[in-house]
């Protein structure tokens, strides 16, 4: 089956998945018999009774659930995802999402680069020097990272690199927010670093990078350990294969054997993992954004859920489901280029 046929097949399945997710979340957000009245987030105290009834009618909360869902799907297909609650001063849900999504993208990209840049070499070194000191050190780092509560680690970084560095007069890193000088630069991409570069305002960019370091590293530390373990396991597996013995018997230098022969095979599982991690990060590392009050989508969704704002929750979960499914598809497609034996 040629690649494009496989992609079409996966896209059809994706629609099914998205449909499933939207059904579940819609029921949870609106239909579920909970204390909170679905209209609550969309009205503010000073509204009169008929105004509330009017808001209820506009949002269609008075309709039976399946009709609400039908309208919601019809509007969604037209790109109208309804408005957010009072907490985000009733702007369009899609605008609220898109305005803060670039921040999460920037944070995720930074985190994934750190994870890959540290995780993979760590994994390879600990595979090559198996059961010797570097292996044990990397195993401890990996397992500690894997067992660290994300918010706790965020605080530790803040405590040490911000608070104590401040007290001890050392150059400290900012511990919250995405950039110190709001609005100094016209928003082009929504990502502070890129906007700073576009505007040529180097100082703004540097400040944005400074803000990025702590949250990105806090995210990366948790996933780089896991990635290192996977790369170590698959590299050990590959180094036991016969074609490595043949490569060595050809008289190739050990370095060449590892980088030309072993690397390509060993990194295949790492691709899957990186894909999944990136998708999860794009979903907005909710806690890290909350701890570093990074204006990303994760923090927003937290607030939305507290308010019970079903429109924004629906937009957020659908977007995340889309990202995860596309990430899985991208990983499978990368497989074809990495491993010629795989034919869909």
């Amino acid at each position, binding site marked *: 089956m040629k690649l494009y046929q496989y992609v079409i097949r996966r896209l059809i*399945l994706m629609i099914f998945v998205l449909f499933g*997710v939207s059904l579940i979340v819609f029921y949870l957000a609106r239909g579920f018999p909970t204390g909170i009245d679905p209209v609550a987030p969309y009205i503010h105290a000073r509204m009169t009774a008929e105004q509330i009834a009017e808001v209820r009618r506009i949002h269609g909360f008075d309709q039976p659930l399946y009709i609400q869902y039908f309208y919601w799907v019809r509007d969604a297909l037209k790109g109208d995802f309804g408005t957010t609650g009072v907490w985000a001063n009733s702007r369009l849900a899609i605008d609220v999402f898109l305005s803060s999504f670039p921040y999460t993208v920037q944070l995720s990209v930074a985190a994934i680069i750190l994870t890959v840049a540290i995780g993979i070499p760590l994994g390879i070194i600990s595979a090559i020097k198996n059961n010797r000191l570097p292996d*044990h050190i990397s195993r401890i780092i990996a397992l500690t990272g894997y067992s*660290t*509560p994300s918010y*706790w680690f965020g605080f*530790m970084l803040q405590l040490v690199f911000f*608070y104590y560095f401040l007290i001890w007069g050392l150059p400290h890193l900012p511990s919250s927010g995405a950039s110190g000088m709001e609005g100094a630069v016209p928003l082009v991409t929504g990502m502070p670093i890129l906007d700073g570069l576009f505007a040529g305002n180097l100082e703004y960019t540097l400040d944005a990078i400074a803000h990025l370091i702590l949250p990105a590293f806090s995210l990366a530390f948790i996933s780089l350990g896991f990635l290192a373990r996977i790369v170590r396991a698959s590299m050990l597996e590959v180094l036991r294969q016969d074609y490595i013995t043949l490569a060595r018997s050809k008289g190739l230098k050990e370095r060449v054997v590892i980088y030309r022969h072993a690397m390509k095979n060993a990194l295949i599982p790492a691709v899957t993992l990186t894909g999944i991690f990136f998708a999860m990060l794009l979903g907005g590392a909710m*806690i890290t954004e909350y701890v570093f009050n990074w204006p990303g989508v994760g923090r927003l969704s937290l607030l939305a859920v507290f308010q019970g704002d079903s429109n924004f929750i629906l937009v957020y979960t659908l977007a995340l*489901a889309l990202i995860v499914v596309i990430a899985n598809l991208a990983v499978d497609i990368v497989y074809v280029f990495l491993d010629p034996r795989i034919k869909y």
Partner: protein
Amino acid sequence: MKSNSAKARTGEWKARWADFKYTLYLLRRNPLVLAGSFMALFFIILSLLANYIIDPNLAIPTGYPESGGGYPFHRSYMWSKGHFINWGPDVRLHEGPEFFYLGTDGWGRDLLKMIILAIPVDMENAIIITLIASIFGTLLGTLAGYAGGVVDEAILRVTDIFFAFPALVLALVFAAMFGRSIPTLRLAIILVWWPPYVRLMRGQILSEKEKSYVEALKALGAAYPKTFIRIQERFDVVFDKIVPLRAGRLRFLLIFQRVINGILDQLALLGMHLRILFRHILLNSIYPVLVQATLDFGGVILTFSALMFLGFSPSPSLPELGNLASDGYSHVFDAPWLMVFSGLTMLIIALAFNLVGDGLRDVLDPKLRR
């Protein structure tokens, strides 16, 4: 009937016991696993005894000790009576009667005692969630792997939906809607935690199914427990007595017999699959699930406490590690010990089980085992 051959091992259990001892031998050789298992054991024992060592109603916050308003911080004494570390810039010293090793929390309760009380709560959650999620996921994965075809495709798609679901969002939505209670949080985490087990088990079953010992069992006709054979024979005997009468009217009996045979056929087929599945394949593919469950144990504690941290705990004074941490969130810079030590306990518990899980993976992997 003791045979006299020198080393004859009598029971079937002796052989299995030797195999188990060999696994323990491999475990002992790995220092990290050893450390991990001791730590894990320590926490398990601690969580069993916690409510006896420390009086649980200490957790109920009494009024504030006389401290003239403001946040009643006791100067925390670290580690030894004589020596203390000033944790904050201007923490007011309160000559508290006792001596708090790790300082106090928001309600003036001794943090060390609260952590000890919190451990059983967390461990209990972790055990329940991991057990239910792994068993549910494993069964579904076995069905998908063994049945194949449409069933496999359907189960995979459902798992994809839950995979695509952000863990925390479902939990948040649940907790927000259901109101904040521990069972709802558990349900939320379970709902998101079972998909990886489906994929893991399905992969195992698919690879095990192809092995030739499964084919050998099919060749043995490993289907029909002998009781079935007897019932079926007796049924044939009875039937032959009636059917030969074969007056025209009894023709419908022939159809009846064919239907029964059809049903028995399907039962025999099902019997074979079940026997092969449960007596052989499951036994050989259960180990990676065991490893994954141990690794997940720590992960579940972290997720559960993360939810608590985000403010979904039923009552702010519940002695739970995430709760204690969230209590320290507002005073992170002037009373960091709250956040530091509750987070550190979580880390150590999770690390303990992860060390054991990591070691188990190497030991139980058939390729590395020899």
